[in-house]
């Protein structure tokens, strides 16, 4: 029998929180994946504990995972409708994310004195202590004891039983959202295929958790979330960093060359190294280098040898790699440099998100050293962005810096698996043996200014490249006119890439006089804010930049149309400053935040309103 009180919602946000050992990331992932399978759009955001080795139950050890599911989903959501708290510390750290009137599900077995003390509660009634007793719908569930009872006959040890608590709680959440258990069971079956005992235990507790909800909490209203018809195709759930890795693999496959990653571990970029290291059977080479410099240099060596050379890092690593990026600019070799941005400067906030590396990537090298800079806008867009970055690098023989960030890299959404021929072809700009008589390493295409690269091993095309300035025949030169010309040629090569990238697309109201702009990982938040305000009748246009160097050809034409331009970014206004230097006669207002956190949609809304009101 279906629960009589069902709330129809177009979207809901659920936040799973617990100790870092409580398996919240897994519970959240199962919930979001099943939602996606059922036709919801999803967006997720894992929030890892601040301290890696914090004691169990302490405030520093809280880990959480926020999932936004619904008909049209741009971001993991500012605040949640449902909060799951597996212990008092999780409650304390996460209650601020719960909307007023939201549902708070907590494991009542952990709300005992010892655990409350670890979470630094002074009394035994944390709800009154925090003044939230009547702000939320409190749903206490005996997760720990029920899990024990559920697995009493299995003979599993206490530790293994405790590890199943997350799945019991998940079963309860499945009931709350009227989600079919079958899909979760399929997920668990493939996840624990090699551990039948754990699989059986998890299948049992998820069912018991679900039934517990149905039997015990008939008075709580449950949800049904609207779905939307997605583009037909086969989908999978990916995190941004994995999507980046897959985009690179797809590019190497389509170009018919090998993928080589040289990388040194650094949060939050390391998952790209992890993902690609798993894919050796797809002919992917990964080298965990001795340092950042070696990471990029091995990639440059591989690129010289004809591979798709890639290095992945975060801000501090870009700083170390800048001299080598300059070498790739000078030697005109294809190279993809991925910067998964985190909070800076220096070691900064390693696990948090920011957009503060933009200027470093555009200008942070000695000499006139132009290269392509682009940015991914959503976790799945990391796939396309990595693909396109590779395509440009290989077809124009230039380094391309791709900016993503901690929010995109760790967040997930559903990727439509591309059909073999649906991606644009990639044709590396290389010279072939039949050109032996006329080959010159720095001869250029008169329109694109691209030089052809000769690959070692090709008979007759032996030549030298390097970091010293050279003339068009490849001979070292310090001649002032030659240097001037080569500087201009290298710049012209990058500028002409504007002709092969898409124009800037304007979304929103045609008759708006305010345009909201941004770049990279803030796309979801800005879009949600713009749509919310438009739904209230505010006339707004929006444009989001994927290409930063070079800018789309219509950038100036678009921006000059608007009375107000509001640029939102997670730094002190770096993109706004860059745009001002590139587009004459525009006045840009800024909404900037540098907190290590994604924007809150309502903050962007407020910023927009104040601009619109003037």
């Amino acid at each position: 029998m279906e629960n009589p009180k069902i709330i129809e919602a177009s979207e809901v946000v659920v936040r799973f929180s617990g100790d870092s050992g409580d398996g919240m990331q897994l519970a959240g992932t199962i919930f979001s994946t099943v939602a996606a399978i059922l036709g919801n759009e999803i967006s997720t955001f894992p929030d890892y504990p601040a301290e890696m080795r914090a004691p169990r139950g302490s405030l520093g050890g809280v880990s959480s995972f926020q999932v936004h599911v619904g008909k049209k989903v741009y971001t993991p959501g500012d605040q949640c409708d449902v909060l799951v708290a597996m212990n008092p510390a999780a409650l304390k750290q996460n209650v601020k994310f719960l909307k007023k009137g939201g549902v708070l599900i907590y494991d009542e077995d952990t709300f005992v004195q010892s655990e409350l003390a670890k979470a630094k509660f002074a009394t035994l009634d944390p709800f009154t202590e925090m003044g939230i007793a009547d702000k939320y719908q409190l749903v206490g569930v005996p997760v720990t004891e029920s899990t024990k009872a559920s697995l009493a006959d299995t003979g599993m040890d206490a530790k293994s039983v405790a590890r199943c608590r997350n799945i019991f709680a998940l079963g309860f959440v499945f009931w709350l959202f009227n989600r079919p258990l079958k899909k979760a069971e399929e997920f668990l079956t493939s996840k624990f295929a090699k551990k039948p005992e754990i699989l059986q235990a998890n299948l049992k507790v998820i069912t018991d958790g679900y039934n517990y909800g149905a039997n015990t909490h008939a008075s709580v209203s449950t949800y049904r979330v609207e779905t939307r018809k997605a583009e037909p195709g086969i989908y999978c759930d990916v995190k941004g960093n994995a999507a980046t890795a897959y985009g690179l693999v797809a590019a190497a496959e389509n170009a018919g060359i090998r993928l080589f990653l040289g990388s040194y571990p650094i949060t939050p970029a390391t998952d790209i190294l992890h993902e690609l290291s798993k894919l050796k059977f797809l002919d992917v080479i990964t080298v965990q280098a001795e340092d950042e410099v070696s990471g990029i240099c091995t990639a440059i060596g591989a690129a010289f040898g004809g591979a798709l050379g890639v290095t992945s890092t975060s801000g501090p690593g870009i700083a170390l790699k800048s001299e080598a990026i300059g070498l790739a600019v000078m030697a005109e070799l294809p190279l993809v440099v991925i910067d998964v941005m985190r909070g800076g400067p220096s070691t900064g906030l390693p696990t948090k998100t920011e957009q503060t590396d933009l200027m470093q990537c555009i200008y942070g090298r000695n000499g006139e050293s132009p290269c392509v800079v682009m940015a991914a806008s959503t976790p799945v867009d990391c796939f396309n962005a990595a693909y396109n970055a590779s395509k440009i690098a290989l077809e124009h023989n230039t380094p391309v810096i791709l900016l993503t960030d901690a929010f995109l890299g760790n967040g997930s959404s559903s990727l439509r698996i591309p059909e073999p021929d649906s991606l644009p072809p990639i044709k590396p700009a290389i010279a072939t043996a039949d050109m032996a008589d006329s080959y010159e390493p720095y001869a250029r295409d008169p329109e694109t200014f691209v030089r052809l690269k000769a690959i070692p091993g090709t008979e007759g095309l032996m030549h030298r490249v390097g970091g010293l300035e050279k003339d068009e025949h490849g001979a070292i030169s310090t001649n002032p006119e030659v240097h001037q010309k080569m500087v201009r040629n290298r710049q012209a090569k990058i500028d002409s890439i504007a002709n092969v990238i898409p124009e800037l697309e304007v979304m929103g109201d045609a008759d708006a006089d305010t345009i909201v702009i941004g770049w990279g990982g803030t796309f979801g938040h800005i879009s949600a804010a713009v749509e919310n305000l438009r739904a209230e009748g505010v006339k707004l246009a929006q444009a989001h930049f994927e290409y930063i160097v070079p800018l789309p050809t219509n950038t100036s034409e678009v921006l000059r149309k608007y009375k107000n331009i509001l640029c939102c970014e997670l730094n002190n206004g770096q993109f706004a400053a860059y745009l001002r230097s590139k587009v004459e006669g525009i006045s840009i207002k800024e909404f900037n935040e540098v907190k290590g956190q994604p924007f809150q949609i309502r903050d962007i809304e407020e910023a927009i309103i104040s601009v619109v009101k003037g």
Partner: protein
Amino acid sequence: MQRAMAELGIAPSQTAVISGIGCSSRMPYYMNTYGMHTIHGRGLAIATGLKVARPDLTVWNVTGDGDCLAIGGNHFIHAMRRNIDLNIILFNNKIYGLTKGQYSPTSDRGLVTKSSPWGTVEDPFCPAELCIGARGTFFARAIDGDIKNSIVAMKAAVGHKGASVVEMLCNCVIFADGIHKLVTDPAVRADKTILLEDGKPMIYGKNRDKGLVLDGWNIKSVTLGENGITEKDLLVHDAKMADPILHLKLAMMGYSPYGYAGATDELPIALGVIRNVEGISYDEAVAGQIEEVKGKKKARTLRELLLSGDTWEVK
């Protein structure tokens, strides 16, 4: 180098010469091969990437004492540790030539240069010690200008699978003229150096009457015919011995902690191929693992891989 390659029958098109920055690193421009003149200290890392991506090529790295052991020191020890199949020619002039004469990590303690007008107050690296200490599998030493033995060392380097270091003792006439003369000066060379050859007894000296023996833990110089010593009593060079201790001792002969101050010792400096042992080369291991993993996983394309995971279809 060109002669070594020609003698080995390796085509210039199959060869890449990667260098860093320094006087010595200009070499690629004099070679009709593929080449890259890179940035200071990073030639080895670039050569590593090239060799891993293209194990079919013969890859050289040409470097200087500053390029290789100062700014590039980290890449050097890790290249040794990984045993990547590169041929590294290290031109050791004990000075920064290109930047006009500052002391380098191989300069002897007390050396007066432009940046050490009162003499240096630090000890040098001995490249062999660093190489072997970082688990290097091949080390040779030759005097720049001794073409015959340089070619022998380079050919042996190419023949060795793994990281091969050939240290060339060379002279910067402008900023450190005569820096190796205690051992290379033709007047003393025969007595101050010994050419090690695999399988041959360790004999040296102008009159070829001196030899080396092991005395407890130490190598000792002896005179043939004195105290009943014959050729049979001498050490026989075994470059293929896996245990590095004797190689290290041989390589360090003549090097006191202060550099060649020890060249006044009785022991000569070792030339030739000092160490040449087999090990798993990194590039081969990388390629081998890829083949091995292919045997375990069915997917050959990204699409096959993604379709084999958790997916759902929207119709």
